[in-house]
């Protein structure tokens, strides 16, 4: 079972190292991590996915992350409702006799063809992590895959300030 933590941070040198250090010093391995500019200039949103972290550990982790001077907000996404999304690019070489089937399948799973240079194709998939994994698996029958996944992005649902809750718990 994966758990996700979302962070809003100041984009300052070393901020990522401080954050990853907080995970590793507590013995957690990072499964995926996304980081890109947020809505305000100078702020960056990071989503971290970890495995095997129980609720108490997550509460402590979130509090410790919030103590990092450049971390503006840390939220345990496992404790709130959220919208998870991930992007994958899958490159595949498809044999000539399979190409029609392949293109039909791409349509059926809602993927987009972003590069077509037969026999090589690149498709783009968007969805939550489990759906992506399923769809990527389903492509295997057409040929050998190369996969690049973005890691999970997430947005807290609704307007409630999840931060307040995480500090008090």
């Amino acid at each position, binding site marked *: 079972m994966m758990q996700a933590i979302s962070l809003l*941070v*100041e984009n300052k*040198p*070393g901020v990522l*190292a*401080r954050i990853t*250090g907080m995970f590793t*010093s507590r013995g957690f391995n990072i499964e995926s991590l996304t980081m890109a500019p947020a809505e305000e200039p100078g702020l960056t949103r990071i989503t971290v996915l970890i495995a095997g972290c129980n609720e108490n550990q997550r*509460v*402590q982790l979130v*509090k*410790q992350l*919030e*103590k*990092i*001077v*450049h*971390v*503006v*907000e840390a939220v345990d996404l496992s404790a709130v409702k959220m919208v998870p999304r991930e992007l994958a690019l899958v490159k595949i070489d498809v044999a000539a006799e399979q190409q029609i089937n392949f293109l039909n399948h791409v349509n059926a799973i809602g993927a987009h063809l972003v590069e077509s240079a037969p026999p090589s194709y690149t498709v783009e998939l968007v969805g939550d992590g489990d759906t992506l994994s399923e769809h990527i698996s389903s492509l295997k029958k057409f040929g050998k895959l190369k996969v690049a996944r973005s890691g999970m992005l997430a947005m807290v649902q609704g307007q409630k300030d999840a931060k307040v809750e995480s*500090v008090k*718990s």
Partner: protein
Amino acid sequence: MTKIGAQILLECLEREGVDVIFGYPGGVVLPIYDKLNLFKIRHYLVRHEQNACFAAQGYARSTGRVGVCMATSGPGATNLVTGLTDAYLDSIPVVAITGQVSTHLLGTSAFQEADTIGITRSCTKHNYLVPSVEELPAIIHEAFYVASSGRPGPVLVDIPKDVLLKAAEMTELKEMKLPGYQVPEQGDPAEIRQAIALIWNAERPVIYAGGGVIHAGASKELRELAEITGIPVTTTVMGLGGFPSVHPLSLGMLGMHGRFATNQAVIQSDLLISLGVRFDDRVTGALDRFAKGAKIIHVDIDPAEINKIVKADAPILGDVKRVLVELNRQLRETSKESAPKKQQARDAWRAQIAAWQKEHPLKYEQSKTEIMPQALLEEIVRLTQGDAIISVDVGQHQMWGAQYFQFNEPRLWLNSGGLGSMGFGLPAAIGASVAHPEKTTIAFVGDGGFQMSLPELGTLANYNLPVKVVIMNNQYLGMVRQWQELFYQGNYSEVEFPIFPDCEKLAAAYGIPGKVIDKPNQLTDALKKAFSTKGPYLLDVRVAREENVYPIVPSGGALEDMILEPKAKLTSAGKSKP
């Protein structure tokens, strides 16, 4: 007027009120040392950078102000690491200034280059690599604010040499922008009300106070809380001095080497009022059997400490002093009505604790032939009357110190509580003595820790600082030996120091007075002489070698498993080297 970065740095330090730096020069910090004589700041040249950081801590711990240390790049910076980690664990405000190789050389394995920011990231509250001279003033101001606000801690500022040399204008302070850094202050009124109800309803309450009380300057408020409610107070090793030792409600230290009555009181309490503490394993012992029947009030300024180890029934996030002011106000208001409710039960509770104290006081076997370590401590207490700064190392002498020394004020007891760094006592005493030249400062150390900090005798002699170094010398790593005796079947493995310098000659070599004693009848005179001599003094006290600290809670055991006294003590024969 333009100035170079080094000058701007020193000006910024003066602006923060810095009067003292403990440091050690080297290649890349030479621009700073070159400008030092233009400023009022006094620089104390130590003999090792680790001791610069410990001295800065001694200054900070004894004053409550930010201590400052300085070192060059590479080895200078790496030598600070133990001191910074120590300050981090004990929440001591220290700002460390390190030099770094010039910006264009960063990451090239240049001479004396180390990734100081990377190395110290996990042992500082925050650290900065200064990217340009223009940003230096704001960073220094921020560094002092972060080090001293909220839960204090060490902050390191790493400055490349080219930044120190570049000319710029000194700028006025701008408002700090730290959107991710919040300092909780006042406690939540609803949480305080909840605590009030718990306090008046408790029959067997105990106050458990820690270093946070001292950092917050809340000793007076703690005393008021105890006196309004009649609740006894135990302190952690970091909280000693936060409540007067001689106060009738004082229970002394709890935990691994706490007194029987103190630990019993905690075990059997029905309310633990926890103030600026972190439920350290040396305090709680086995958690599943720690104060099981007690409700927990936990006041702390660090949200990450609340519910970290023990779930609080009434968590109060805030500055201990401000919370206590409000708590005490409400307690006074409600006392007439609420205090009598549990009066009888509470009287019985205090009587029970007093009975435990009578049943199992601290005790040791007196000797006419050997100086017992405890007798040494009692004599220091008698002669100083609690009016001395005592800076200790780590081990048996530290724990006896925590049991026997008496402090009626905060900031007189300096010790490495969290990290347990040997070699802390002497340099920390130097820092404290620099801050309090009028006070007797005692570096009370073991023979092991003394040998780790011995070069600082040079600093003592250099500045003629009135630090009295008293070595409790058993020619062992005493606490390690005690554990080997009690928990490793007496297998004394690599724990003895049969070679120890003749301290009279050693002191003389540094040009300071010194004395070695080993007879009980020499003790009083030798201590009096040490304390009355102007300037530094080195006193080597040869004590009974295999005395143990009791009580002791075995590692991994619960407080109730404490061992009170030696079980038929083994003789040395057969387990020690011939």
